[in-house]
């Protein structure tokens, strides 16, 4: 998650106001699923050595 994250990129809940410790730990072995800026579910593709996650509004993030 970046500092501008409004939404948790793993569970899709508001980034502030809740503890996302479990999400942070899980994210070490998972790609993001939600766009942290708009909460849309992203299209995620995982290759053996990396991943990409695409939000229709905010574009592509890669590992």
């Amino acid at each position, binding site marked *: 998650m970046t500092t501008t994250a409004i939404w948790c990129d793993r569970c899709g809940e508001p980034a502030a106001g809740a503890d996302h410790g479990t999400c942070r730990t899980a994210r070490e072995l*998972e790609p993001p699923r939600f766009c942290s800026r708009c909460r849309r579910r992203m299209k995620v593709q995982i290759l*053996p050595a990396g991943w990409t996650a695409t939000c229709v509004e905010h574009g592509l993030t890669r590992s």
Partner: protein
Amino acid sequence: MPEILDQARTQVLENGVGLDEAGVLAVLRLPDEHLPAALQLAHDVRMRWCGPEVEVEGIVSLKTGGCPEDCHFCSQSGLFASPVRSVWLDIPSLVEAAKQTAATGATEFCIVAAVRGPDERLMKQMREGVAAIRAEVDIQVAASLGMLTQAQVDELVAMGVHRYNHNLETCRSYFPNVVTTHSWEERWETLTMVRASGMEVCCGGILGLGETVEQRAEFAAQLAELDPHEVPLNFLNPRPGTPLGDRPVVEGRDALRAIAAFRLAMPRTILRYAGGREITLGDLGTRDGLLGGINAVIVGNYLTTLGRPADSDLALLEELKMPVKALSATL
């Protein structure tokens, strides 16, 4: 030494005959203090009947999510509120995935799709994808596309797919608790067709779905009856939004007991560490498993979750003096 391990030493290590269901159950019930001896024996069995080589494989999802089936552990079922979105991989990315896998020294590349069984679109993607990989990458291609018709089996053989994965997932008696949209017997049917076609059969499952220890033993015995070329062993990594999303993970020692027991049931099979080992056993688990009966690993990422970097697994194999199986040895 517990009696079951004495028995296994003669029966499995010396004579190469796997333990039956009762024997597997006895191993699964061994108290903690005998676990190291069980793992050592399973390791000896693996070295004696399979050798020190480790088969390394990479996998990729060709079609992710939106599956019509309801396997309760799976984040790719379209029937649950899982955050995994449906998406197809294009052919250049598929070839890139095969190249990334080959770069690790792996000999196996498995193409997986989240489907009940292939439709024409998926078969077309396979035809083009497998041809593109075979033209550009030196690696054996395996596939996992759900339940097949005989015509699809024949077509996969014609494409040059050498191994087919289709997991039974759990024992016959527990399966209806995990999947309701198809039966264990339907899966067995596909496996029978695959076997008859000459493709290698890869069939395993997931531990920690809520099955009892007795059912774990039942599962090992049913796999031994099938006698697959390879058995991938997964440990449940509970996925948000799935019916099993809140289940506890398998306790590390139980996972290791299961590894030893499955090896003692199937002395000659390729027993592969698949998903969930990082969650269940942490960093040390890979080493313990490789010294307890495992002789194959999936390196790199999984289908919807990430794995350890391939480098750390390969460094471990080197440290353990276990050579990566070479392509020439598998052809």
